[in-house]
C-alpha cells in the first residue's frame, strides 16, 4: 500500500491524544483512592485535557486531507451498521466531546460529589464522565484498528494484533506525553506516568514484534495463478494495459527501495521502543524535562515511521495484476 501521510498523522495524533487522556484519567482514579496525591483541577486536568483535545482535533483535521471530497465528509457517519470507518467517524467526535466535557468540569470546578463510599472515597461527576470517556477511548482504538484489520484481503493487517498494536502504541505515546506534562507541572504523578510509560512501551514492543514476525512468515492466499485462473507454474505479466501507470499503481505500491523499506523498520523499532525508555530513565534520574520531551518527540517520530511501515508492508492482492508495464 502507498502510505498516505494524512492517515499516518491521523492515527498517530489521535493515538497520542487518547493515550494522554487515559493517563490523566488513570491519575485521577488513583488519587480518588488516595494512592496518588491530588492534582490541581485547572492546571493539571483541564490543561491536560486541552492538550489531548488539541491532538485529537489535529488528527481529525489531517484526516480530511485523505478525502477526495472533504466537503461531503458529513455523509460518512451513515453506514455505521456495516462500516468500521463510519463507526470511527462517529466515535472520534463523541470521544472529543467527552474529553472536552471532562476538561470543562475540571476547569469550572462544577464537580458535585455523587456518591460517597465510607468516609473518604468520593465519586464525583468528573469521575463518571471520565469512565464513560475511557470506555469510548478503547472503543475508538478498536474502531481505528478494525478499519485495517477487517479487510481480509490485506493479510498483513487482518489480525487482532492490528487492534492491539494501535491501542498499545497510542497508549504508550500518550503516557510518555503525560510524563512530560506532569514533569512540566511539577506534579507528583511524574514517576507514576513514567512507570506506566515503560510498562506500556515494553508490552507494545512484544505485540508489535509479534505482528512483524507473523507478517514475515505470512503466506499470501492469492497468486498470479488464482488472479487470472490459469494453472501453470510460470506466468509472467507482459503488459498491464497502461503505459503511464494508473490509480492502481499509485495507490498500492509504496515505491520505496528495498533498502529504505528495511531501514525504516529498524529505525522505528529503535525510536519507538528503546530510545524513549532510555531517555525517560535519564530524564527521571536527572530531573530534566528536556530529556522527557526528547523521549516523546523521538518516539512520535518513530511512530510516524512505524505507521509508514505498517502501510508499506501491506501487500494488496490487486498488485498481482500490476507487475510490469
Amino acid at each position: 500500500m502507498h502510505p498516505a501521510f494524512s492517515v499516518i498523522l491521523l492515527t498517530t495524533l489521535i493515538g497520542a491524544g487518547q493515550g494522554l487522556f487515559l493517563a490523566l484519567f488513570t491519575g485521577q482514579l488513583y488519587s480518588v483512592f488516595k494512592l496518588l496525591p491530588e492534582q490541581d483541577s485547572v492546571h493539571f486536568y483541564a490543561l491536560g485535557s486541552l492538550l489531548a483535545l488539541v491532538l485529537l482535533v489535529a488528527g481529525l483535521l489531517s484526516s480530511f486531507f485523505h478525502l477526495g471530497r472533504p466537503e461531503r465528509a458529513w455523509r460518512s457517519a451513515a453506514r455505521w451498521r456495516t462500516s468500521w470507518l463510519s463507526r470511527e467517524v462517529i466515535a472520534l467526535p463523541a470521544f472529543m466531546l467527552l474529553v472536552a466535557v471532562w476538561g470543562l468540569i475540571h476547569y469550572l470546578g462544577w464537580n458535585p460529589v455523587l456518591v460517597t463510599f465510607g468516609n473518604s472515597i468520593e465519586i464525583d461527576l468528573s469521575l463518571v464522565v471520565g469512565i464513560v470517556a475511557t470506555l469510548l477511548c478503547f472503543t475508538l482504538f478498536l474502531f481505528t484498528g478494525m478499519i485495517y484489520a477487517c479487510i481480509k484481503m490485506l493479510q498483513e493487517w487482518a489480525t487482532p494484533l492490528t487492534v492491539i498494536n494501535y491501542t498499545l502504541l497510542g497508549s504508550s505515546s500518550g503516557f510518555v506525553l503525560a510524563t512530560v506534562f506532569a514533569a512540566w507541572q511539577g506534579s507528583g504523578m511524574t514517576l507514576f506516568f513514567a512507570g506506566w510509560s515503560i510498562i506500556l512501551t515494553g508490552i507494545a514492543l512484544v505485540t508489535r514484534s509479534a505482528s512483524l514476525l507473523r507478517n514475515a512468515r505470512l503466506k499470501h492466499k492469492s497468486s498470479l495463478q488464482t488472479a487470472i485462473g490459469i494453472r501453470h507454474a510460470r506466468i509472467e505479466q507482459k503488459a498491464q494495459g497502461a503505459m503511464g501507470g494508473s490509480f492502481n499503481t499509485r495507490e498500492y505500491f509504496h515505491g520505496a527501495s528495498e533498502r529504505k523499506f528495511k531501514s525504516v523498520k529498524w529505525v522505528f523499532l529503535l525510536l519507538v521502543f528503546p530510545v524513549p525508555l532510555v531517555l525517560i530513565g535519564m530524564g527521571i534520574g536527572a530531573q530534566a524535562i528536556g530529556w522527557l520531551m526528547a523521549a516523546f518527540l523521538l518516539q512520535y517520530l518513530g511512530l510516524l515511521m512505524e505507521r509508514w511501515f505498517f502501510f508499506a508492508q501491506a501487500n494488496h492482492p490487486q498488485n498481482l495484476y500490476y507487475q510490469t508495464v
Partner: protein
Amino acid sequence: MTQLALVIDLNVCVGCHACVTVCKEWNTSGTAGYLSDMNPFSKDPTGTFFNRVQTFEVGQFPNTETVHFPKSCLHCEDPPCVPVCPTGASYKRESDGIVLVDSEKCIGCNYCSWACPYGARELDAEQKIMKKCTLCVDRIYDESLPEAERKPACVLACPTNARLFGDIDDPNSEVALAIREQGGYQLMPEWGTQPANHYLPRRKTRITIHEDELVRADNPLKKERQKPMPDPGDPTLDETTSW
C-alpha cells in the same frame, strides 16, 4: 433473482483493446461524469478506465502462450467493497446485481478500493470520486436503442465475440450455458466474493488416435493374435480381391 454479468472468453480474446477504447468513449459521457486523463499527449499518460486489457505469458519458451486478459469490475455477488463504504455511496442493486457508485455521495476515501482484491475501482484523479464499471447501466435499459444494442458497449465492440452479456441466474441464458458447458470460472475464489463475471478458459481440441486406426487390420482374428499378423508389405485383401 437476476444477476447481470459478463462472460469473457480467453480462448478468443486477441487483445485488440477495442473494448477498452469503446468503454472509455461511452462512459466518459456517462452519468457519473467524465473519465479524466492526465498528460494524454505527453510523457507518462495516465487516466481513469473501467476496463483494461492486460497481457500475460504462460509457460517457458518455446512452450509459451500469450494470454490477453480483459479486466473490469466483476460485480461480485458478495461484494466486499459495499459494506466498508462509510457513506453508502457504494451499493449493489437488488434488481439486477450491478455494483455501482453514487457519484453524489462518494467522498473519495479510497476505502472501497482497498477492500476489492481485483483492483477494479479507480479514483478519478480530477473529480476525486471512485469510478468503476457500470455494466453500461445507462445503455442496457435504454428503450430508445434497438433491442440488439441494449448491451454494454464493450460487448458490442468486441470483434471476436469474446465478451458475452446476460443474466447468469437464468439457467437458459447464453452466459449461463457458456459457464456451464465451457468451464467458466471465477477469479480469486479464495476470497469468497463470488464474482458474477466469469472467464472461459483456453481450450484445445485434441483427439486420441490409436495405431490400429491408422494401420488396417484386415482380419480381426489376426489383430487379436490368434493368427499370425500379415507382413505390412503383403498386399491387402482389397488389393487382391475384387468384390
